């Protein structure tokens, strides 16, 4: 469906916040679900690009979807050139959402770079779910440098604690966010904690090693190139461990993008 851009603003070098209004028939996305976006006036780039939902609001006549994105190639470059009142095609919401548990004790979010976008929407969901309950939201957020810790203010408003790391030490811990997290890992017991993560494959793989052998609940959002976004092309698969129950390949757009970390075959 075509949406109208109300805002497409650079919030830090190469990072944009895009806000689009859509017809009210657009379904409310669950945290972890994504949308496929395209400039409808082009066939080059040809395919939609997947983005996790960052924000969502519903009013009487329309809905507003927000995504937070980083320019990395042609598709995101073209998106960044669209302006207020331009149309953008938004398909979705697609994919399997994060499993959430209102009764959870400690909820831990780990994000690397632009992985912050879907995680923020999840954190928000937890905050609204758990408003009156005894849930602690803790976030670990890593980026290359301080400026790239986009959306950190919003995260701070949502979570009780936000730990950061940067490659250059310009904000928080100097090093990888998984290193920072590993220092605290013993405080997140399997029974009372839920871990959610989104970020580069290397970060998720690192995390999988940290939580391996531990039975703590840990779901991650995986990224892969997509064509259809709805399970038809089999283009977006990731390898699951044998006996993962769903065969060797799983489609990120259907069986994912959210996976239990233990199911992924890291190769």
């Amino acid at each position, binding site marked *: 469906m075509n949406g109208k851009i109300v805002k497409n603003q650079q919030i830090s070098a190469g990072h944009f916040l895009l806000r689009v209004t859509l017809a009210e028939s657009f379904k409310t996305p669950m945290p972890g679900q994504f949308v496929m976006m395209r400039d409808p006036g082009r066939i080059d780039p*040809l395919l939609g690009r997947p983005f996790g939902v960052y924000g969502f609001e519903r009013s009487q006549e329309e809905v507003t979807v927000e995504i937070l994105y980083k320019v990395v190639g042609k598709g995101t470059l073209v998106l960044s050139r669209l302006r207020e009142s331009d149309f953008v095609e938004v398909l979705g919401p697609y994919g399997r959402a994060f499993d959430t548990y209102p009764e959870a004790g400690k909820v831990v979010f780990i994000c690397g770079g632009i992985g912050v976008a879907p995680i923020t929407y999840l954190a928000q969901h937890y905050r609204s779910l758990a408003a009156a309950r005894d849930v602690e939201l803790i976030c670990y957020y890593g980026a290359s440098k301080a400026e790239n810790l986009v959306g950190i203010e919003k995260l701070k408003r949502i979570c009780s604690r936000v730990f950061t790391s940067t490659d250059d030490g310009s904000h928080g811990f100097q090093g990888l966010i998984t290193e920072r997290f590993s220092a605290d890992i013993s405080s997140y017991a399997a029974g009372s904690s839920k871990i959610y993560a989104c970020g580069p494959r290397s970060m998720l793989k690192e995390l999988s090693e940290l939580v391996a052998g531990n039975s703590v609940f840990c779901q991650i959002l995986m990224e892969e190139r*997509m064509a259809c976004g709805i399970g*038809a092309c089999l283009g977006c698969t990731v390898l699951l461990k044998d006996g993962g129950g769903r065969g060797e390949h799983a489609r990120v757009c259907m069986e994912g993008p959210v996976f239990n970390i233990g199911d992924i075959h890291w190769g």
Partner: protein
Amino acid sequence: MKNAGPEMQVDIGGLIIKNPVLTASGTFGYGSEYVPYLDITRLGAIIAKGVSLEPRAGNKPPRIMETPCGMLNAIGLENPGVHAFIKEKLPFLRQFSVPVIANVFGETIDDFKRVTELLSESKGVDGLEINISCPNVKKGGIIFGSDPDMAHAVTREVKRLTDLPVIIKLTPNVTDICLIAETVEEGGADAVSLINTLTGMSVDIERRIPHLANVTGGLSGPAVKPIALRMVWQVAKRVKIPVIGIGGIMNASDALEFLIVGARAVQIGTANFINPSATTDIIDGIEDYLKRHNIDDINDLIGTFDEEGNAC
């Protein structure tokens, strides 16, 4: 009773379909994926994702890459095998009263034969499209499609084992697609469909590695349309059996180009990924065109290309 609209029905090798718009194999899953996004009952026919005798895991990821106005795929024919297809996928596909065409893949002639037999016995399938043109598998596929003798043999063997209309799907990666088309016509094919994808590749220059784990992939999308159209035109002039046009069709205007040069029907592939209701939008667009041009029956449009029309 049809209200006022133009006649859209065509006959593709004995299979009568209510309009000439089909889904291309591998781009429409097993139908279920698209149910939320379009009125499947409106399709001319559904061609399902390719099936092989045994289940296939397909190629390792990454499996797709975008290219200028196109995409490369190297799925590697991931599918649950013909038994699971018949048991788990067919019943769903049948519920729309739209003809279902199975797309058959084999590594050997025997594979093709077994799958054909099983599908014919299953009684749930209305036609077979024989994929002798997949570029993304190590064995089978394109090997059959680029050698006239092999293509002939597969066709003859398959035809012997089934009463279903048999469409042979041709590869564009050949010197003379007309020769292959003629050969499979002789072999008894009821129709030919073309094109499958063109073999291509793409390189990550920073890491000096292929973008696809399989190195090469099949190119599809608007980029290939001029090539597909040329081949369809050439083949339609050469063979008597119906030709089904495929390749880069994104909208009604593209589909009409194929029909005008002689395609009896068209298949929509990559367009489904971009616009899940591409097929029905195209049906609507063709109808509009026929009305605008006062053509009552689509068969009066097919093959009406005036080749000399632009030569001074």
